[in-house]
């Protein structure tokens, strides 16, 4: 079950065995973290909308670089916190998870899958709207930025779902 096979996995497990930071020990704290993650993802969609509306132009380029850059840096920090809070449930390989974590990972991926299907329909609708509002105008930059936004969302969804659903952790001191 939770047997590390390499030194790297051993170190990773040691980090994830530590206690969850106090501010994320409550449901409200964890859900605020998820909201922060969604805000980071929203930045990618802001740049997508700007690209569809203004690309090719300098404004579209600067807005995209700024939004995606901030989204990437802030998102990495927020998602990193989520990995610690969820103790790597969605990121660790299966052989490092126990049955509860494996089940939670499966549930998170199943929920994320349903959300991804909805997201794809929303993206199709948005792209159709972007293309028909200005003839057949579909800048290649906008297509790439849309793809990046979708990719980042799909990658982050299981972690967001797990963090949102997670029950309050059990304090270590209980054993004292």
């Amino acid at each position, binding site marked *: 079950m939770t047997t590390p096979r390499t030194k790297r996995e051993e170190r990773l497990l040691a980090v994830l*065995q530590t206690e969850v930071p106090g501010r994320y020990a409550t449901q409200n704290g964890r859900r605020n973290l998820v909201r922060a993650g969604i805000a980071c993802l929203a930045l990618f969609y802001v740049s997508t909308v700007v690209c569809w509306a203004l690309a090719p132009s300098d404004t579209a380029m600067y807005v995209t670089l700024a939004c995606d850059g901030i989204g990437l840096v802030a998102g990495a920090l927020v998602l990193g916190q989520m990995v610690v809070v969820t*103790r790597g449930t969605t990121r660790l390989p299966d052989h490092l998870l*126990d*049955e*509860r*974590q494996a089940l939670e990972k499966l549930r998170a991926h199943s929920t994320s899958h349903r959300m991804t299907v909805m997201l794809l329909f929303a993206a199709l609708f948005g792209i159709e709207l972007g293309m028909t509002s200005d003839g057949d105008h579909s800048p290649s930059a906008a297509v790439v930025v849309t793809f990046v936004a979708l990719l980042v969302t799909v990658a982050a969804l299981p972690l967001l779902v797990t963090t949102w659903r997670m029950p309050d952790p*059990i304090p270590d001191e*209980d054993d004292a």
Partner: protein
Amino acid sequence: MARPVPTDKDKELVHNRIAVLRAERGVSRRELATALGVHYQTVGYLERGEYSPSLHLALQIAEYFEVPVEVVFSLRPFPLIGSTNL
């Protein structure tokens, strides 16, 4: 007299005595988790009734405490200590 049939509400609920047995034997949550090969939080969630174990894990827990599985797990709440309704 026949005992009441569990309702839909507690259909999924499995009551357990892990915390009592652990305290009785002086076993820490981490020690039990290591012996079972699970995360110590999983033991905590089991004790709080927020997670129901697989049959394999339930049998492992019973084996660890050297008691029959029905001593540790039950579909009905365990009687409280001092309760006359045993």
